[in-house]
Each structure stands twice: as C-alpha cells, then as structure tokens.
C-alpha cells in the first residue's frame, strides 16, 4: 500500500481519536456536574444552617451546627461549606444526637451540636470534641466580638456573640460574612475591620444607616469597647474582649 495513503488514513483516525477523547472528557465532566447538582438539591434543606456563624448565648439550646470561627472567612469557607455535607446526609441522626447534647450543656451555653455526626470518618471538618475545646471557647469570648443586644434577625437571638476577624462584612446578602435577615438592613450594609490596630466601622452606603451610640455613621468611625452599634432592627454591643 502506498505510504501516503497509510499516513492519510492514520491522520484521520488520530484526529477522530482525539475528538473522541475530548467527547469522553466532556461527557464525564458533565455527568459529574449533574451528579453534583443533584446532590446539592437533596442537601438544600440543610443549607439553611450554613450561615451559622454565631455562638449561642447563655441558657439557649439550639439544635443547629454553630461554627464559631467560620466568621473569619466568606460564606463558602472550609467549615461552613463542609458542615452541611456532614450534617445533611445524617440529618435526622444529627438532630437526634445534638438535641440532648445541647440541653445537657444547658446553662453553660456551649453550642452542643459541635459534635460531629457519628458515622463520618472521612469528613475532615467537624472536629472531634477535644478536652481543650472548652478552653478554646473561653478564649474566644475574650477575643473581640459583637454581643447581640437586640436582634431583628431570625437566627440571632439576644445574648449571642459574633467573633470578629480582621474584616467582617455585614449585610442582608449571602456574600457577607455576617448575613442578617433583617429587612431594614441593606444587602451590603457595613464593614468592621482592623486598620493599624484600630477597630473601625465603615458604612457601605446603607439605606437606613448604621448608628454607633445613637449617632449615624457618616463614613467610618473607630469603635471602642462597649459601643452600641445599631443597624436595622438589630443592636450589637462591641466588646474589645
């Protein structure tokens, strides 16, 4: 057979092969995406607890995974993202185990559901309850945080605390690190951040304004220990720790 014919046929075969390869990869990826979307939908009810960034206040038991440190990052951060994955598949189990745990912890007010759902060996998040966990929580209470004086939010309750990282955005939209359901809060309402060691509150052009000790914040204001921050129907007290 002529060499050129072999080469030409081979060339077409090779091209067809590479296209088939690409098609296989496409099919695989799309199948993967579909499976992921399906899983996401089945997990949708569990998503509500995703913005659990607050610590339950004293004397309150709430059967909901509260991850205190999650506030330091945006919503899809490690603990917050993986937490529903852990809890959703074993949702009833988690509810069942966490409710008594929470009521047991009673007055001490530790967020009971910190406990991982029992059969989750592969999930890296939900840390096993360590002995020094309590001490850690204590340390967090001494760290700078917001104390909820009055809540216009569905999930925040008076007496809760919200730990503050270097920058915490507050607003109604999901992209905020502290997302409030309060309808008088703008979707991008305020930012509390550290600058040169000073804790500042910046208003991000909210409709109804942010008030510190009753005065409307013009652009930015330095926070001091004990300041009362009001936005919408929610009132926080800033505690430097």
């Amino acid at each position, binding site marked *: 057979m002529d060499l050129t014919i072999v080469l030409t046929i081979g*060339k077409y075969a090779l091209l067809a092969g590479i296209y088939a390869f690409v098609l296989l990869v496409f099919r695989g990826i799309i199948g993967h995406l579909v499976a992921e979307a399906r899983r996401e939908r089945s997990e949708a009810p569990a998503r509500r607890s995703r913005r659990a960034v607050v610590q339950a206040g004293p004397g309150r038991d709430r059967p909901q995974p509260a991850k205190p440190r999650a506030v330091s990052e945006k919503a899809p951060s490690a603990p917050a993202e993986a937490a529903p994955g852990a809890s959703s598949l074993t949702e009833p189990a988690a509810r069942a185990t966490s409710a008594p745990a929470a009521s047991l912890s009673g007055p001490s007010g530790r967020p009971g559901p910190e406990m991982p759902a029992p059969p989750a060996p592969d999930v890296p998040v939900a840390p096993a309850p360590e002995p020094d966990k309590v001490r850690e929580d204590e340390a967090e209470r001494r760290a700078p945080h917001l104390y909820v004086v009055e809540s216009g939010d569905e999930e925040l309750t008076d007496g809760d605390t919200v730990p503050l990282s270097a920058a915490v955005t507050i607003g109604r939209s999901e992209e905020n690190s502290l997302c409030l359901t309060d309808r008088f809060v703008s979707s991008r309402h305020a930012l509390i951040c550290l600058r040169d060691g000073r804790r500042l509150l910046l208003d991000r052009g909210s409709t109804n304004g942010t008030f510190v000790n009753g005065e409307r914040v013009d652009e930015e204001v330095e926070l001091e220990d004990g300041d009362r921050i009001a936005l919408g129907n929610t009132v926080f007290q800033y505690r430097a720790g």
Partner: protein
Amino acid sequence: MKEIPEDRRTELILLLFATLLIGGGGVLVCIGMGWPLLSALRPLTVIGAILAGALMLDLADSHRDRWLLPIVSVIAGTGYLLLSQLDETSASRQLIWILMGSGVMVATYYLIEDIRDLARLKYTAGVLGIALVGLTLAFGVEVGGAKIWLEIPGLIRFQPTEIVKILMCIFLAGFIAERSELMREDTRQVAGMRLPRLRHVGPLVLMVLFSLAIFVGQRDLGPAVLIFGLFVTMVYIATGRKSYVGLASILFAGGGVGAYYAFPHVATRFDMWLNPWTEPTERGYQILQALFALAEGGLVGRGFAIGVGSTIPAATTDLIFAVGAQQLGLAGAVVILILYALATHLSFSIAWRSTDSFGALLAAGLATVFGLQTLVIIGGVTKLIPLTGITLPFMSYGGTSMIVNFIALGLLLAVSRDCLPRRRQR
C-alpha cells in the same frame, strides 16, 4: 482484588485511551519518517511517565482531581510527536524532561502535606521570585539575544522567569487571601473610582511593579505581560470589582504605547503584527512562516512526516502550534485548543469549588497563568495579537518550562486534594 472507585477508573480509562492515541500517532510518525517501528515506544514513554505519576499519586490518598492528568498527557504526547519530527536531540531531551517533570509533580504532591501551609511561605516566595529575576539581570547568560538564562556552571542552566510565575502565584494567593475583604470594602474614592487603601495593597503593588520593571529591563516582555495579567486577574477574583480591570486595561494600554516607543523590538513585533508583508524576509519572517504553515495545513492538515515545518523559525519552542496546525490542520488546531480550554476550565473549577480561600486563589492563579500563556502564544502565532516569545505549556521544547508546568500541575492536584469538599464513602 479491591474494587477501584469510579472516578479513579475514569482516569485510568482516559489515560489508556491517551496511550492508544499517542501510540498510534507514534507508529504513524515512524512509518512516515522511515524509522524502525520500535521508535514508537518513545512517545509512549511520555504517556507512561504520566500514567506512572497518576498511579503513584494514588498510593496515599485517592481524593483528587481526575481529569487534568489525562488531558495533559494528550497535550504533552502530541507535543512530543511534533517535536520528534523536527529535531531528534531536542526530542530525546524533552523525553527526559517529561520523565523528570512527572517525578517532580509526584514529589510536589507528597512534599506539600497540606497546601494551606504554603500560605505561610508567601513572602519567601515573593522575595525568592524577585531575587531570581534580579540574579538573572545581573549574572544572566545571553542566549539568542535575550538574557533570560541563569547558569550554575557545569551544573544546570535554567530560565528563572518560568519559576517566577509559580512563586508569584503563591505570593499573590497568600497575600490576597488574607485581606480580600479589606481590599474590597475598605476603599477610598479617588476620581470617581473606589480604590483600596494603599496599606492593604502597598506590598502587592510594589512587588508587581518591581518584577515588571526587571522584566522590562531584561527586554523579555512575554513574562511581564503574564505577571501583569496574573496580578489583575487575581485582584479581580478576590474583590469582584470591575473597576480594577478597567484601570488595569488603561495602564496596560499606556504601558504598551510606552514600550512601543521605548523598545525597538516591541515596535518590530507590533509593526509586523499589523503588516508582516513590509519586510517578508527579515522582521516579518517568523510570523509569515507561521501563517504559511497554518495555510498549508488547511482543513485537516498534511499529515505526520509529510509537512515537516523545517522552515518555521523557533518551531520547537514558541511556534510549535504552527507545526501542529500544519500537520493536523484546522481540525487538529481546534482540538488542541479545546484540550487547553478544558485544562484551564478544570483548573478554574478546582478554584471555584475550593473551600479554602488560599487554595482557591492559588488554583485560580495557576489556571490564569496556564490559560493566559496559551492564549498569548497561540494568539501570537495566529496573528490575532502581536507575537510574544513565550512557551506553549506542555508542548513547547524546554526543560524549565516543562518541569515548572508539572510542578504547577502537582500544586493544582494538591489543592484539589486538600481544599475540595469530600464526599462520604458509602
């Protein structure tokens, strides 16, 4: 025997498919070039190296991305097939680079126990990157007009700019991950635009300006464009503010005009992009040969070994895409582009799904470098944009480039291992 999980099986099937493809291609090249059929084993070694790498990556923990390696193996295999026809010594060296690269990828994957630890090394990476380009500027060896090589006599010779890409990715990801919210929200109005305060971005801007200045000093504008694009993309990803992109585009346009008047070789590239026919045998030679090769390829190409691009300058490195298009035609060129697009998409998808902000930014940065590099050189070869000397990842001949790309691949896989949400096993 233990049952192989489904995603792992997919990867193995795809890699075996790639073996078939590249093996077949190797046989074609051997027939065409009149080599003994045993030479077809050499392109197979390329896939073998990556397949072995994939198997070694599975020794410890099998949770990672499953699509990148097969795609890269097809790209690298095709690149080797083209290269082997052009220059035999380069080809055998490239084979060694690929083998080493696969090993380095596995080493990177295992040496980094948790990719998030890498965030602590951000300043080290930044300073090291600048030191490397600085050293090149001071002690660099000049090869072919550009002073982009660094040599330790008798030991190794490498291109630091390739390594700097990754170091800059680590630095930018670590730096921005720490303060993306500050950069987004703690802003100041300047001339109607909301810009972040200098104290949040100062070191960032300084580092980037410095590296840009050094690259410009080296007259090596390809990497400068790359680093600048990386910087802008990462800031945009972190803050989501389009005004930065607008500002950067204006700066880029200004810098481009400035470079046109300041550097004659930039002016050459630009003039020859506008009209290569003014000097078809001198300054326009390179781009015209590339265009001729594309034209010769036509719809389905000349086929292996028939149209060997010996007249194309820098055929083994920068213009290898033109050789591919010559031999496999538009059909082949498009499928190569699809493979690159898929690899870029998959890298960005690792970033997108990552649960850790550093991991996400690192993956996004590596994806940006990969995609941008492909875009800049293929755009240059096809005369969509002015031609810039830069390698085509995983295809061009070049030791540093190949190994660095494998390191980047190892980092991406490590991100996919550490930062993607895990599914529970049934």
